[in-house]
């Protein structure tokens, strides 16, 4: 069964069907979209369950000839993409559920776009073909553009255009780099391919590598965002509707890190090594700068947004440490950041829906009227700050191990994230939850409804699970995390059965020959 195709395009199919629903059947629209997202979640759990932890390389591979020029429709997941697929599938139904009360206008369009967005995101993570990857990478911008632009806050048009233009600027140059890569591969190997794993084998001279890596890195750095390219993020996050912020922070930012892991580092090993000092320094600046900026924000959403800059800095620093420990940490931390930041945005959304303000000074003493909410908020916050027993701790500690192994100074500087995040989060909590109530409206706030608990609770439970028994998740991604830095060779711990299927899978990838499609260079110049 082509489970990946099914999973990726199910939301799109549901969205297409929903276009023809009458627009006043609000309940039907909500339930259909939720059902589609839940179905994806079920599929992703099936996927996770059947995933063989033991070997490197993609699994559940699907391949079909598509467009010529060696472009194939090929999907597959390895440990890295699996975890991110799971994260996306997990958060999407929650985000949809959270928007039931927040989105009151143009409801049909909202849910259609959210589902299209899900297809785009999943597609990025499961593509094994560079062209396909790029298609999803770009296509995903359109629904996000509309989500921010139509349902966003006051400065939504500015924010959404900035978001699209920044991202496009990076990715269009990446497109050129992809094309150069493709033509270089054709020159050396004589065959045309966009298969990511086949392109890994391409040996490029250092100069070309630097140019190409520059283009790729720019695209990913904008997305992550690394320090000087981050300015779109606070705008986009603040203006986006809650569901949009959740997906943006929890999943979209990971696409940048994923890009580095999947493409930037393995494709251009020499260039990466030469750029490491620069990239690491940018990451550290991001950590400190993001933390300090978060400290002085007046708006809760932009505080969380800047905390994302800081946390993503740590993840990127770990990625750039290029050792197994750090890589595992980075991967795990990506999931953690997705959960904790997603939860924080949901929490801000819950408050905003009740009071229509996000300014910290308008709150105070919220804990009294909303005890359940304040407890949930506290857990989400502690997870973000990395308290032992919760998921954030595991990820951070792994990251620090890895970073320290490479550089003491960077390690020490990166430790500042612990202090800073504790500071801005606890201070936020204190100002919002404790003290005297800022107004009559705050005093009479209603606690979380059952629906709100329904979408918040799963995140909290998962936070505990990931904090207490990380092996469930780490086990599946270990091999991929290690091979991402070390390159080749199946892990010694792999079971023979897994190895066999790995070999089988790999041969499937290699031997499948697609007919020369129109436009392909093989076909050009030949008679028929």
């Amino acid at each position, binding site marked *: 069964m082509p489970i990946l195709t099914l999973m990726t395009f199910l939301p799109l199919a549901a969205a297409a069907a929903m276009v023809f629903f009458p627009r006043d059947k609000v309940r039907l629209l909500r339930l259909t979209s939720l059902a589609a997202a839940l179905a994806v979640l079920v599929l992703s759990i099936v996927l996770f369950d059947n995933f063989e932890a033991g070997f490197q390389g993609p699994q559940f591979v699907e391949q079909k000839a598509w*467009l*010529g*020029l060696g472009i194939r429709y090929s999907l597959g997941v390895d440990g890295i993409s699996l975890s991110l697929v799971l994260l996306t599938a997990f958060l999407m139904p929650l985000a949809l559920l959270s928007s039931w009360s927040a989105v009151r206008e*143009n409801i049909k*369009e909202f849910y259609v776009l959210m589902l299209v967005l899900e297809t785009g995101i999943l597609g990025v993570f499961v593509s094994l073909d560079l*062209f396909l990857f*790029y*298609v*999803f990478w*770009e*296509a995903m*911008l*359109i629904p996000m*553009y*509309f989500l921010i*632009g*139509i349902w966003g806050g006051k400065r*939504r*048009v500015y924010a*959404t*255009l900035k978001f*699209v*233009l920044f991202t*496009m*600027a990076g990715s*269009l*140059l990446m*497109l*050129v780099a992809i*094309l*150069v890569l*493709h*033509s270089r591969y*054709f020159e050396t190997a004589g065959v045309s391919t966009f298969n990511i794993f086949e392109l890994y084998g391409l040996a490029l001279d250092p100069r070309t590598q630097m140019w190409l890596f520059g283009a790729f890195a720019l695209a990913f750095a904008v997305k992550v965002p690394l320090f000087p390219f981050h300015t779109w993020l606070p705008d986009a996050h603040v203006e986006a509707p809650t569901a949009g912020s959740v997906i943006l922070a929890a999943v979209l930012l990971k696409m940048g890190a994923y890009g580095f892991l999947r493409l930037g580092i393995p494709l251009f090993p020499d260039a990466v090594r030469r750029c490491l000092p620069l990239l690491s320094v940018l990451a550290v600046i991001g950590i400190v700068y993001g933390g300090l900026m978060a400290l002085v924000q007046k708006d809760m959403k932009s505080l969380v947004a800047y905390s994302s800059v800081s946390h993503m800095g740590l993840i990127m620093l770990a990625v750039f440490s290029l050792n197994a420990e750090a890589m595992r940490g980075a991967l795990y931390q990506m999931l953690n950041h997705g959960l904790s930041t997603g939860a924080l945005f949901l929490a801000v959304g819950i408050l905003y829906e009740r009071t229509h303000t996000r300014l910290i000074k308008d709150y105070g003493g919220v804990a009294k009227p909303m005890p359940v909410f304040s407890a949930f908020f506290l857990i989400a916050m502690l997870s973000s700050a990395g308290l032992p027993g919760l998921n954030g701790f595991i990820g951070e500690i792994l990251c620090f191990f890895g970073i320290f192994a490479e550089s003491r100074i960077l390690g020490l500087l990166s430790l500042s994230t612990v202090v800073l995040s504790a500071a801005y989060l606890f201070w936020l909590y204190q100002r919002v939850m404790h003290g005297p109530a800022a107004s009559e409206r705050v005093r009479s706030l209603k606690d979380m409804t059952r629906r709100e608990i329904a979408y918040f609770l799963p995140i909290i439970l998962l936070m505990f699970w990931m904090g207490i028994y990380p092996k469930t998740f780490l086990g599946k991604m270990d091999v991929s995390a290690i091979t991402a830095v070390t390159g080749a060779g199946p892990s010694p711990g792999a079971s023979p059965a897994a190895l066999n299927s790995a070999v089988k899978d790999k041969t499937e990838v290699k031997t499948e020959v697609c007919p020369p*499609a*129109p*436009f392909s*260079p093989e*076909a*050009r110049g030949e*008679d028929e």
Partner: protein
Amino acid sequence: MNSLLALLPSGVIFLGALILLLCEAFIRRENKEYLGYMALASLALSAATAVRLWGKDCSYFQGMLAWDRLAILIFVISIMGTALVVLVSLKYLGRHEANHGEYYGLLLLASAGVSAMISSKNLLVIYLGLEVLSISSYVLAGWQKTFERSQEASVKYFLLGSLASAFLVFGLAFVFGASGGLEILPLSNLLHSASGDPYLGLGAIGLIIAGLGFKMALVPFHMWAPDVYEGAPTPVTAYISVVPKIAGFAVLMRIFAEPWQDSQPSRAVFWAIWAIAALTMIAAGFSALRQTRVKRLLAYSSIAHSGYMIIALLSQDYESLIFYLVVYALMNIGAFASLIALTPGADESSDLDGFAGAGLQYPWIGVPLSLLLVSFAGFPPTGGFLAKFYVFSGAVSAGLVPLVVLAVLATLLSVYYYLKIVVAMYMRKPAAEAVPETENPALYLAVFLCLIGAVQLGIFPGNIAYLIRQAVQSLTF
């Protein structure tokens, strides 16, 4: 193969035009639409006769008309474009006090000109075809007799167009001087003529490029285009921004079919075209950025798109060029048609404020238009993206990386100005109750055909790609 069949495609369409002009006199004003259906029928018949010639390489008049596969494919593409324009015009004319049956006759005559242009390898016949096309277009641009801007467009188009024709004829004289004939020769033969003097050949190429550049609105020969595109009735704008370009590129493809030689004059020509490509993309992009009127913005955008196609001309990646032409034709006609549907009754040169909120108010026209704009901007998974991708891919393989980088930067610009329209349509509060066109099924049919085409070409372009490859293989000396 010398065969009378080669006369059929042009003949049918020409005959159709004459019959239409004759019938016009006998049909009552309310029924002028029937002439449109007749035009559609003769377009279809002509396309069918052309398709029958596929693979037969029929020619007539000592090879003056030669229907190779390239000519047939380009002809069919331009016929489809013309047919879409007819669909768009059916009701439009009646509502804009321009209900004269000659309109369709002129459209068909213009298409007859196109057929001569693309099926000949003789520059004089090409010139003849171009003039037939142009003169019909001048008249069509001024179709709204009571509307000043339309008149201005017509006169401007006529004056500058005639100047361009003069350049072209002058170029032909140079060609004759250099080669002793008017056949299209391989570029190197022209540039290294018997006299050993490359300037004659260079002059010829320069003047021809200038002449065709005027007609195709390439920068720096584009000054007339925005005014004319804006002033002309919108269906005519759709026509003159698409069909002359298709025909012009067909001619350019034949002129530059020989691989670029490594000689001084050849390099000069190469870099001149390089500069035109870069200028067209960037200058038109920056101009589009400042526009507030949607129709004018689309006018600049259609200029900018020629720039990308010239890249494919430079890298001699004609498959991508034709693919781009097809996608461009669908997008452009679709966009202008949506424009008509969104602002009926009014002239379509309303500014962005007139579009505020229209996307959510009228989803059946807002969604197609925004998808077309997204395709214009080159977002996947649309035809616009794949067309750019193929062009860029061919150019990178040909070593034109700097030009491709310029092109992606121009694309980034274009994302901004296309999204500006989408912003107005979806992210602003509606200003007034606009009443969109509802009783015009033909117009909607055209929009949806364009939309389906533009999207389908982005995902499964297989069959078209196959035809294009066959057509390009027929391009030889």
